[in-house]
């Protein structure tokens, strides 16, 4: 046997020809995969490559249309998550499968044997969370917990069943770099105990750092298996995407113009029990600048977007100025008339109505700002369908939106194409201020690079752009200046080139600007010591 040959030990799990059809569409097409005992195995692929479908089949949530799953040498059918748990498979979902109205202990109890009492579960969870460095209060309600804490519940819940294989679906997408480091330590501990980990990600750096082997998926098929440590990020990306992704181009140091949007001591109380209050947020964005706002999910990003867009106007008129005009109490269309454009995070049911045609979704955002072009008939406001259809066509061509048919429903487009349309809908107006929340969330690499390039080009043409994002790669790709939002507070902005991943991580974790830089430095050491 030569060294380069596959796994030495008999695989814990092996999958042969696994296929899942939705109608005639093959989400997974004849997948082969082997996971050895005690290895961290990466499953790489873009959004829509079939990673989630594959692991749902391994966890019994979905039933395969064809193919075989072999567990410790025995062919098995996994009919339900319960059967998967009995075999020894644990799962940590990307969009957590938690219940906000229930306590931590109740959440854990739901996937355990009903004969075990709640108090016993609480005790075991407490012991286990201590052993793996995952502190948890069993009596806390999930609704009150941070995203990182919620992930710990999922991990502890999976560990309580003493699994041989733990599947983690994009676990670091919601964590700060420091939290991610702590997660990796936990994973190494599990590996040392002989457990296997199936680690799903599209973050190439961390895959190279922690994984022993990788399987790459594209369009539902396996396109490569490799040792990630032997590969470069570029070679892994090529396996994932199938071609080189256009690199986002920028020329450094464009001259900044006048202040386009200004926020002064903006405070907003939480509107719902689950919302975050904004505290004394201030910022200035000049023409030609891209201000990126980094932060972990659920720290007030949505609330900041609502206040900036005017979907929920704020009490103080002076708190927000767009092109010098106080607009705090002005609604979204008043701000649009001043030349502002907005792209919210959620595509379906916020930025667009899924069951409506693209042209209708164009009118959605521009019925007032483009009144002259799109409406006729004076007070009757009769819609000029010809005008909105030709504008839709123009936008789709400009942004290369791939769609079936002339004017399909928004819901029938892929995430990337719909997002290109939603961004293009604003760019088409040449906005002098653009506020974007999570511009490339759940979007394929090609579309993401196109959208990022469009944002940079817009700033270069003299507009002010605010990008709220949780994706640090994206932030470094587009930002002129970077600020961090944490618990509803916004840090001072810093020029992008002066910041490191680590500094941002500390700011994201809630180390505030009030502390001096020196304190920050020592804080960094303290955080590592933990």
């Amino acid at each position, binding site marked *: 046997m030569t060294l380069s040959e596959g796994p030495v030990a008999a695989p814990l799990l092996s999958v042969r020809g696994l296929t899942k059809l939705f109608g005639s569409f093959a989400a997974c097409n004849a997948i082969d995969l082997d996971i050895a005992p005690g290895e961290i195995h990466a499953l790489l692929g873009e959004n829509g490559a079939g990673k989630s479908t594959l692991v749902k089949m391994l966890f019994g949530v979905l039933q395969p249309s064809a193919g075989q799953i072999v567990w410790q040498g025995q062919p098995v059918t996994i009919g339900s998550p319960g059967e998967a748990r009995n075999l020894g498979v644990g799962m940590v979902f990307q969009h957590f499968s938690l219940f906000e109205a229930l306590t931590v202990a109740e959440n854990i*109890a739901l*996937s355990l044997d009903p004969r075990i009492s709640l108090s016993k579960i609480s005790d075991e969870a407490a012991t286990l969370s201590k052993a793996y460095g995952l502190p948890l209060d069993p009596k806390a309600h999930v609704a009150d917990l941070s995203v990182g804490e919620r992930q710990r519940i999922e991990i502890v819940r999976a560990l309580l069943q003493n699994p041989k294989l733990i599947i983690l679906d994009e676990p670091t997408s919601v964590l700060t770099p420091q939290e991610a480091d702590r997660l990796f330590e936990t994973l190494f501990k599990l590996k040392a105990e002989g457990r296997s980990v199936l680690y799903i990600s599209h973050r190439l750096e961390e895959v190279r750092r922690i994984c022993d082997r990788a399987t790459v998926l594209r369009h539902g098929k396996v396109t490569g298996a490799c040792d990630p440590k032997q590969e470069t990020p570029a070679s892994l990306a090529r396996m994932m995407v199938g071609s080189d992704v256009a690199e986002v181009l920028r020329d450094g140091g464009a001259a900044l113009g006048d202040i386009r949007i200004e926020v002064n001591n903006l405070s907003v109380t939480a509107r719902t029990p689950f919302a975050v209050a904004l505290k004394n947020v201030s910022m200035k964005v000049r023409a030609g600048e891209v201000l990126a706002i980094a932060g972990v999910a659920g720290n007030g990003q949505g609330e900041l977007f609502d206040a900036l867009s005017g979907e929920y106007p704020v009490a103080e008129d002076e708190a927000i100025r767009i092109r010098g005009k106080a607009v705090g109490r002005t609604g979204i269309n008043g701000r649009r008339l001043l030349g502002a454009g907005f792209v919210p995070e959620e595509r379906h049911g916020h930025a667009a109505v899924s069951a409506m045609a693209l042209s209708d979704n164009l009118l959605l955002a521009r019925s007032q700002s483009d009144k002259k072009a799109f409406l006729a008939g004076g007070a009757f406001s009769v819609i000029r369908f010809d005008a909105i259809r030709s504008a839709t066509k123009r936008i789709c061509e400009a942004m290369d939106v791939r769609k079936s048919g002339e004017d399909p429903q928004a819901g029938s487009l892929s995430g990337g194409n719909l997002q290109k349309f939603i961004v293009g809908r604003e760019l088409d107006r040449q906005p002098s201020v653009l506020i974007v929340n999570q511009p490339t969330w759940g979007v394929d690499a090609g579309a993401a690079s196109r959208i990022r390039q469009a944002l940079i080009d817009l700033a270069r043409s003299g507009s002010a752009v605010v990008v709220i994002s949780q994706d640090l790669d994206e932030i470094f790709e587009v930002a002129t200046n970077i600020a961090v939002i944490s618990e509803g507070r916004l840090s001072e902005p810093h020029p992008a080139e002066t910041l490191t991943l680590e500094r941002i991580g500390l700011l994201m974790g809630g180390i505030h600007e009030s502390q001096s830089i020196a304190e920050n430095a020592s804080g960094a050491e303290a955080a590592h010591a933990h």
Partner: protein
Amino acid sequence: MFEAILLTVITASTPLVIAALGELVTERSGVLNLGVEGMMIMGAVCAFATTQMTGSPYIGLLAGIAGGAAFSLLFGFLTLTLVANQVATGLALTILGLGLSGQLGEMFVGKPGIKLQPIVIPLLSDIPFFGRVLFAQDLTFYLSVALVIGINWFLFKSRTGLKMRAIGDNHGSAHALGINVIRTRYLAVMFGGACAGLAGAQLSLVYTPQWVENMSAGRGWIALALVVFASWRPWRVLAGGYLFGAVTIGQLHAQAFGIGVPSQLLSALPYAATIVVLIIISHNRRTTLINTPASLGKPFVPDR
């Protein structure tokens, strides 16, 4: 005198409590069934007709429960299997129930009914004052109290109840964990139907032992309001139910005394009270948001 009033209050409150408890369980699983009125009236007619045919109000009671549960299956099939709009389907259930019960009950109009007799519990009923009120009631009253205790235990102490609350909170996550969302919801809907049927049976066997078309007279809707009023907690349903019962009986006595207010306006009192109570409860948006099952009324299609 006071004892007699209290007894009538209990009789008027019991159907509201039972129907609202059933709906509470249904809504805790995340399903909004607005067809309580329709299931109730179907329960009433099934119970009355069966009692007439068998001579036994107890078999009638069972028929009422079965009728309500069977009728709720229609709602379950449409909203759970066919994913139809829950609001519209609930309305449809009420409209169909009122029509169908009128048709079924036609031959029983004006027939004297057989009343469900009180079960006097020895010893306990001899306690002065409270004994007669609490321990010399008919079966439906005892059932209503047992249901409050049982449902409270089920929801907050049993593992199946925990699963049901989990489904009501987030059906997507529940499905991902391997909880059978649709089967649990079918059971919850049927339980709601059975309770509504029992409440209807109480109307035609205890409250006014006869068959009158539309005899539920909006009580199903009041029960729906009670669930909101109780912020989905069984004990509060009991309290709210008795509040409404007291208003109903109070206005009847006021009518009898002839206090100079037209009887129609007094009859409108329970409905007006429902509106007032709803305003008070929903006024505090925060508590409503926290208590409402998060997936209430939302359609669920599992991916397979």
